[in-house]
């Protein structure tokens, strides 16, 4: 057990001693703040009637804040996935599995320690992303005199669930990195899947009932179900969704299944 704690500590230090995490964090916060703030401003301008009011999406005052804040995770989640995947594939790329396995010959223990350490890091990314989306979103709402709902316990529950989602996404990245040790391949797959493949699958699966019952298990759908609000639920309100805790379990299952497959394919291999 002590040795397990030491492995987690070391995996955590690996992340903090290179520049990757804060570069990703800065880009993520800027991106999330820009989208959350920008959209609030656009909706604000359109909503006050100075734009083409009739065509504007119907967003109630109650819907606005959760929708805007959820951008932190609904578009920001790709950053913790990249962090988890890059940190894990980096071990193969830089051949640091050699000193790692020499210091801790029980390889499964290291993979679990990595999942735990990056889950914590993902939560930290979740906090940053929420600072970005809630900060920028509520600031612009104040400009338009809208209710930012910062006193609502429902909003803070959403923020907490979004942080959990980001933590789980980072663990998914670790599993993916173990499954696809090639760094370039892992980056391409993460970006292609999160930015193109999954959005299309989610849209297509929503077209019929039977496919929707499968589509709700897609990782992005599970994540949105966990957070409880997103622009997807707005664009397709009839979408079948999981309960928030089911969404969390589905995401965790993705992380665990990928890590177990990665363990048996690449992690246990000869290090030559």
């Amino acid at each position, binding site marked *: 057990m002590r040795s397990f704690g030491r492995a987690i*500590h*070391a995996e955590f230090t*690996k992340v903090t*001693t290179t520049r990757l995490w804060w570069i990703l964090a800065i880009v993520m916060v800027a991106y999330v703040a820009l989208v959350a703030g920008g959209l609030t401003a656009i909706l604000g301008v359109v909503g006050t009637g100075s734009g083409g009011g009739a065509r504007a999406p119907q967003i109630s005052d109650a819907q606005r804040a959760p929708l805007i804040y959820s951008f932190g995770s609904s578009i920001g989640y790709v950053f913790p996935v990249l962090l988890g995947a890059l940190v894990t594939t980096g071990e193969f790329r*830089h051949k640091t599995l050699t000193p790692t396995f020499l210091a801790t*010959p029980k390889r499964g223990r290291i993979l679990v320690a990595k999942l735990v350490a990056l889950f914590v890091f993902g939560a930290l990314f979740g906090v940053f992303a929420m600072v970005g989306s809630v900060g920028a979103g509520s600031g612009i709402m104040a400009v338009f005199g809208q209710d930012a709902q910062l006193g609502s316990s429902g909003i803070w529950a959403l923020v907490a669930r979004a942080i959990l989602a980001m933590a789980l996404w980072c663990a998914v990245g670790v599993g993916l990195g173990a499954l696809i040790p090639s760094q370039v391949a892992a980056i391409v797959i993460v970006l292609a899947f999160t930015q193109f493949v999954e959005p299309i699958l989610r849209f297509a699966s929503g077209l019929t009932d039977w496919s929707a019952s499968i589509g709700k298990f897609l990782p992005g759908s599970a994540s949105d179900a966990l957070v409880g609000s997103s622009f997807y639920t707005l664009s397709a309100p009839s979408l079948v969704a999981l309960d928030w805790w089911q969404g969390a379990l589905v995401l965790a299952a993705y992380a665990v299944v990928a890590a177990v497959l990665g363990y048996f394919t690449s992690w246990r291999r000869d*290090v030559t």
Partner: protein
Amino acid sequence: MAEGVTIEFTNVTKRFGSVEAVSDLSFSVEPGQITGFLGPNGAGKTTSLRMLLGLVTPTSGSATFGGTTYRNLSSPLGTVGAALEAASFHPGRTAADHLRVYAQAAGLPRSRVGIVLEQVGLESYGNRRVGGYSLGMRQRLGLAYALLGDPGVLVLDEPINGLDPEGIRWIRLFLRQLAAEGRTVLVSSHLLSEVQQSVDEVVIIAHGKLVHRGTLASLDMVESKQVIVDSPNREGLGWALQAAGYAFRSLRGGVIVDNADATEIGRIAFAAGIPLSSLSQKHAGLEDSFLALVGEEGAL
């Protein structure tokens, strides 16, 4: 420092697909000495050492430290230190941070980081990113990692590769000191000349098989198949050797005859009436014996 223990390879075989990299290798390495693990490139040295360290799983057989496999050591870094290649670092991490990560993983005090950096002469470079290190500095950092747990056994794969003459001198003295402290030191190299001043014992492999095991001096005993002969009448000697079917080279100090026995060459000269000024079986040097053992393609 932990006790030096005996390294034991017992019938170790490793196949990569159809390639048999290591074949039924058995030998042991005793504490308090430097043992050279020699063989040409591709002989299977790195594969053998990685099997010893639990990084590569043998197809059959086992390699242990005093009977315990690496994966079952209770304190791996405190028992064995290993430096396997010059590039197992994240280029964006500083040397001190690199060492700190593994000190944490192994439960070693943080103070060890500064101590080992000083031991290898990197104390003023510890806070630089490893990406900017020269090959020599990387080799030293690899050694620092090996020393992190103050182990009784050191396993070093080609640690001299890429060092400048000053670095080579330094590492030779350093290995001597480590062995004098009672540690088991196993150093691989593809060049005998690189380590012959440092090692007490040699284990020589070629094509994954053991070809020689003994003291460094035992290499000198290997019989040479060459004869050095000379005559005031070199031309006549040449004809006589050629007639007898020998291959030879004429050098300034004499004629070197391959695959020959001195008695036989003397008899041929006598029969041809050639006077000899010198005749002897060539004394095989260490390097020649080494090359003879590993085969011609070993002379890379």
